[in-house]
């Protein structure tokens, strides 16, 4: 989030800069690198997704106003159609009286659940479902999705400023707040969260990032003391705080194991979180994007503990050895070499950071060599995911974008607060920007983004939560490439199959690997189903699965263009 100066490339004109601060500001290009194609269509209005995010901006520039909100794409009622959940802000007084809490009473501040109807439109079912965020009166940030009790229904964990809320899915279209009885009593400014099974015991555990040790009382004045130029503060003004890890006890309750697992030993300014088994040892690892401090790579030692190896693995800093304003993250194999890589979004002038997994537990910043550096130098990104939007067998990169400072135009004339989202096409590991529809030309204040095949056509659609605005629902128009959808059903492993690794091979030798996860990008949760692009191939030669407990399963010659349900062998 930090408005950090980028690497100012100033040539030899040293006569001019003996003491001059290099602001290094820049603006997003207003010229599309390629003409708009029609791969995606904005359909939020058409589908009756009328959500409006309400951050409650104040003249006091409380930092959390500019950090929300999140979105989840998941099938809460198991009708086979994906639904959408949005987090929302809460009313803030200006200024906030001492001891006062954000007020979510007014329905305009409620979190919202949209149920997908059979005709593809959506209906707001928030009140019936009981997920409005009332009465706990929180300023909601992010959302995690997972079936923590293995009852076959996806549950929700909503992060807020001040704590989190666990909603148990009752299986009848309603949810119940079970936070207290589940033992999820953590506080602080929670940001992203994700369910994963770190100890492979078949029960989903919960990882929660926390941003800063900040409160309304400790808020300070930042920016110029000129009317209209007060700004949201850089995180450097506030102390870091540790993330939280909750172990699922298997009986509907959780135990805070942040200290014993080693997570609490590392305080950061944490925003995004993603999971993958980067060293292929069978234990899921955790990557945490930190804002203007070193990113964390928590290596799972397989014995209930984590070692932070960001620095030694090469994934803690960018190629210059600098920290950056890490916000969103994805942990997936973009170059089809079988090793999960990491992409981290950040602020203008920092360029998004692409850590390629070089094997042996090492990462190499390939932002430049992949071409990503040049196309993202001027962009500010939040939620992100590698998605194969055209199912050609290579995962492309989507990023929800917008600057963190809502008055950036006043202080840096060439920067804009709202920015169009980014779709970077992956051609054999090289990225180029693609304007995949009008939505990719329209600037928005993007924050969260979640992914899933909303209309069941085998092509991944995107939902973006825009701060203070209506969301974007980007329907993928599809194409002629073939695909294979995979939905895992764990038996010995967690029911969602989260943490499974899937390797799909086609006859042409293309090998794609996936790590099943719902945690994505920033403040968001995606559908757990995996959509694999097969290109021209009409069959997948092989689909190999390594379940979290280590069970191996392989299927051969699977025809394309179907959603395949795969159940974990019981023995």
């Amino acid at each position: 989030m930090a408005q950090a100066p980028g690497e100012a490339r100033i040539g030899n004109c040293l006569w001019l800069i003996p003491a001059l601060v290099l602001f290094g500001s820049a603006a997003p290009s207003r010229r599309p690198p390629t003409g708009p194609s029609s791969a995606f269509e904005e359909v939020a209005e058409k589908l009756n997704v009328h959500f409006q995010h309400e951050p409650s901006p104040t003249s006091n520039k409380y930092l959390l106003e500019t950090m929300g909100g999140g979105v989840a794409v998941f099938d809460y009622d198991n009708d086979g159609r994906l639904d959408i959940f949005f987090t929302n802000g809460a009313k803030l007084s200006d200024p906030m009286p001492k001891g006062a809490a954000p007020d979510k009473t007014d329905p305009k501040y409620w979190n919202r659940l949209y149920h997908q109807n059979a005709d593809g439109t959506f209906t707001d079912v928030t009140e019936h479902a009981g997920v409005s965020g009332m009465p706990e009166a929180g300023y909601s940030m992010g959302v995690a999705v997972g079936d923590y009790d293995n009852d076959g229904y996806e549950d929700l964990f909503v992060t807020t400023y001040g704590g989190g809320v666990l909603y148990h899915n009752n299986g009848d279209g309603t949810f119940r707040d079970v936070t207290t009885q589940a033992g999820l009593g953590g506080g602080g400014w929670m940001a992203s969260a994700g369910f994963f099974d770190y100890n492979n015991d078949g029960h989903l555990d919960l990882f929660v990032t926390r941003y800063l040790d900040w409160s309304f009382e400790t808020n300070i004045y930042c920016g110029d003391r000129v009317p209209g130029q007060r700004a949201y503060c850089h995180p450097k003004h506030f102390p870091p705080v540790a993330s939280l890890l909750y172990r699922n006890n298997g009986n509907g309750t959780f135990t805070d194991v942040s200290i014993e697992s080693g997570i609490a030993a590392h305080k950061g300014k944490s925003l995004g979180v993603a999971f993958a088994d980067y060293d292929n040892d069978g234990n899921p690892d955790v990557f945490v994007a930190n804002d203007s401090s070193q990113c964390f790579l928590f290596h799972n030692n397989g014995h209930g503990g984590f070692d932070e190896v960001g620095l030694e693995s090469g994934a803690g800093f960018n190629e210059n050895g600098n920290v950056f304003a890490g916000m969103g993250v994805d942990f997936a194999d973009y170059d089809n070499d079988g090793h999960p890589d990491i992409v981290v979004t950040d602020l203008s002038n920092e360029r998004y950071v692409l850590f390629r997994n070089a094997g042996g537990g090492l990462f190499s910043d390939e932002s430049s060599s992949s071409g990503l550096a040049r196309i993202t130098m001027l962009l500010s990104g939040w939620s992100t995911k590698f998605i194969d939007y055209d199912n050609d067998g290579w995962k492309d990169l989507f990023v929800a974008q917008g600057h963190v400072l809502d008055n950036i135009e006043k202080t840096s004339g060439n920067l804009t607060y709202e920015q169009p989202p980014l779709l970077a096409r992956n051609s054999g590991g090289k990225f180029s920007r693609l304007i995949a529809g009008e939505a990719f030309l329209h600037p928005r204040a993007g924050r969260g983004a979640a992914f899933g095949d909303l209309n069941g056509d085998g092509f991944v659609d995107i939902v973006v939560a825009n701060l203070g605005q209506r969301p974007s629902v980007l329907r993928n128009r599809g194409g002629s490439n073939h695909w294979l959808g995979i939905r895992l059903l764990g038996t010995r492993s967690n029911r969602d199959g989260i943490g499974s690794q899937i390797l799909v091979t086609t006859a042409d030798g293309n090998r794609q690997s996936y790590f099943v996860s719902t945690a994505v990008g920033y403040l968001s949760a995606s559908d757990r189903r995996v959509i694999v692009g097969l290109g021209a191939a009409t069959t997948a030669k092989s689909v190999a699965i390594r379940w979290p407990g280590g069970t191996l399963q392989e299927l051969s010659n699977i025809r394309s263009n179907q959603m395949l349900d795969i159940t974990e062998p019981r023995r």
Partner: protein
Amino acid sequence: MKLPIRGLILLLFGASVNAQEPASCETGLARFRSGDFDAAQDFLWECMESGSGNETHALYLALTYRPLKNYKAGLTRTQKALRTFPENVDLLYIAAYLHYRRNETKDSMILASKAYRLAPNDWRIHQLFALNYISFDMVEAAKLSLQRAISLNPKNSELHYQLARLYFTLGSFVDSIEESKQALALSPDYAEAYHNLALSYEGNGNVAAALQNFEKAVELNRKNKRQDEWPLIDFATYQRMGGQPDAALPLLEEALAINPRSSKANYEMGELLRDLKKYQDAKKFLQASFDLDPCNARALYGLALVTRLSGDMPGSVRLMKQFKELEADNKEGEAASRKCQTAR
């Protein structure tokens, strides 16, 4: 790197030299043009001390100190001359300029202010104000001074270029582009202006224009045999950022041929070779970059990474530790900076 003094001569003025002036004045200018700065300095001093020098002679005399760097001697001589001509604006300008070059900005401003009171419309004084304001981090004042200097001497391409650089540094890329173009309209072969134009287009995200102007800057320097490695480094860096290592490689080779002791060029070459997975070669350049600039934490970090990628884990751990220490030192501020400088 050869200083671009000669190239600047044509950029500074359209002014011609007074035909009535003594021989030393004309000879001084001629020697300056031929690059014989020692002789030029002597002749131009003789010219000034005779009371015959004008604005042009004073300016060129001041400029001789850039390559020769004998500022202290220059100040002694200027102070002596000022005792004879205490209100001579040209001498005040030279003294103020020399103080500026010695980072004595306060003294420079005092003398420039005195000159300003005598000649408020002398563009050189406003330029000097701007340079000093930049030292004080008074960016708006610097901008206004440069704009005033330009209004007094609109045909001076260096002033436009300097204003363009100021805009670039402030992130005002549109203005920087405009001023760079003004400079180029006055001096079409102004390689530095093309360089700044390229960087500004880069800042604005105009890839094609950035590439075109980097190319132009590099071509002009080659044509004029100007030994400036910076456009090559920046061009290479931009190509690398675009995933074009093959285009970046020869540019960095050329930059290193010009200035093998450039820490930046060595660093970029090391990073490029890391991209190309030539880890052993990358190590050599990153080590050289760090040796040339022991304050360069990024080179140390890059070295640690390629050391690890090339299989030397203990070596990498040692370098990472060193990197963390340097990072911590750099964060400590000036005291640590001095420590770093001492190592250098």
